[in-house]
């Protein structure tokens, strides 16, 4: 079968060992890129002509917001794969992703409101980005709440997977409806930058940060994945070696 390579690749012991081996290859580049992005964003990038130095929050806010969506998508896709093909490793990926995504959604909310304060004069505005972010946080909390309500890992995996997939279908609808709602009430929206085009000295650090954050997610995911894979395996002989190692 053409699928055998795939199944071998997705077998728990293989995934466990591979994740252990890959983690440093993601973690160090992530650390490097984030430090580079920090230097670029905080020192090298010029102040914005409208927002001065206040715009520098973008270098943590935008990557966090990106993570919130990217992790949710990854989680839901993995959950869907686990649901359809009954693949434990895919469920483990979904389970490992949720807390990471939720925490970055939280960071995106806090940094967004800190950015909003000097611009709006208030920490909270019902602007579409922040509102969508808040709803996304609720989706994450619902997912994790449902997961923890089950004693049995298998059932938790499968039930929460249904929720994740339903959530993924809903995210664009929610986002669209929130934007639509916001356009009616003409509330101020979080303007990312004053100028329509950013000079490279501004956007290159942003790109570096985006990649750095994504790699960071990868590294954390791999560590968590090992834990999740272990808790889904029962008395298999490979565990003994893996745990000792």
């Amino acid at each position, binding site marked *: 079968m053409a699928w055998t390579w795939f199944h071998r690749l997705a077998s728990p012991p293989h995934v466990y060992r591979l994740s252990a081996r890959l983690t440093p290859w993601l973690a160090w580049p992530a650390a490097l890129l984030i430090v580079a992005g920090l230097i670029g964003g905080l020192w090298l990038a010029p102040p914005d002509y409208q927002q*001065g130095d206040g715009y*520098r929050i973008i270098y943590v806010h935008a990557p966090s917001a990106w993570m919130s969506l990217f992790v949710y998508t990854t989680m839901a896709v993995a959950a869907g794969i686990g649901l359809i093909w009954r693949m434990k490793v895919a469920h483990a990926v979904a389970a490992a992703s949720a807390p*990471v995504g939720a925490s970055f959604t939280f*960071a995106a909310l806090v*940094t967004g409101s*800190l950015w909003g304060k000097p611009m709006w004069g208030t920490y909270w505005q019902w602007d579409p980005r922040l509102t969508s972010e808040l709803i996304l946080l609720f989706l994450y909390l619902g997912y994790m709440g449902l997961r923890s309500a089950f004693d049995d890992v298998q059932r938790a995996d499968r039930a929460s997977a249904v929720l994740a997939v339903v959530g993924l279908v809903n995210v664009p609808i929610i986002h669209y409806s929130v934007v639509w709602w916001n356009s009616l009430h003409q509330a101020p929206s979080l303007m990312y930058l004053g100028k329509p085009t950013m000079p490279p000295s501004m956007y290159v650090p942003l790109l570096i940060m985006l990649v750095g954050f994504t790699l960071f997610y990868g590294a954390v995911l791999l560590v*968590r994945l090992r*834990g999740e894979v272990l808790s889904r395996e*029962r*008395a298999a002989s490979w565990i003994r070696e893996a745990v000792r190692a």
Partner: protein
Amino acid sequence: MRHFLDMGGYWPFVWPAYAVTFAVMALNIIWARRLLKRSRKEALRRLTIGGTEK
């Protein structure tokens, strides 16, 4: 340096934003490691209790 830390007067917003983000990252690292450690311990416990299959 003074100038840098002041962030053009935006320091009360810029620095907390960075602090929160990096706190979240640090927590993620700690949580991930704790999860792995706990799962290992748990797996070992299961191996010793339900040691019917080797």
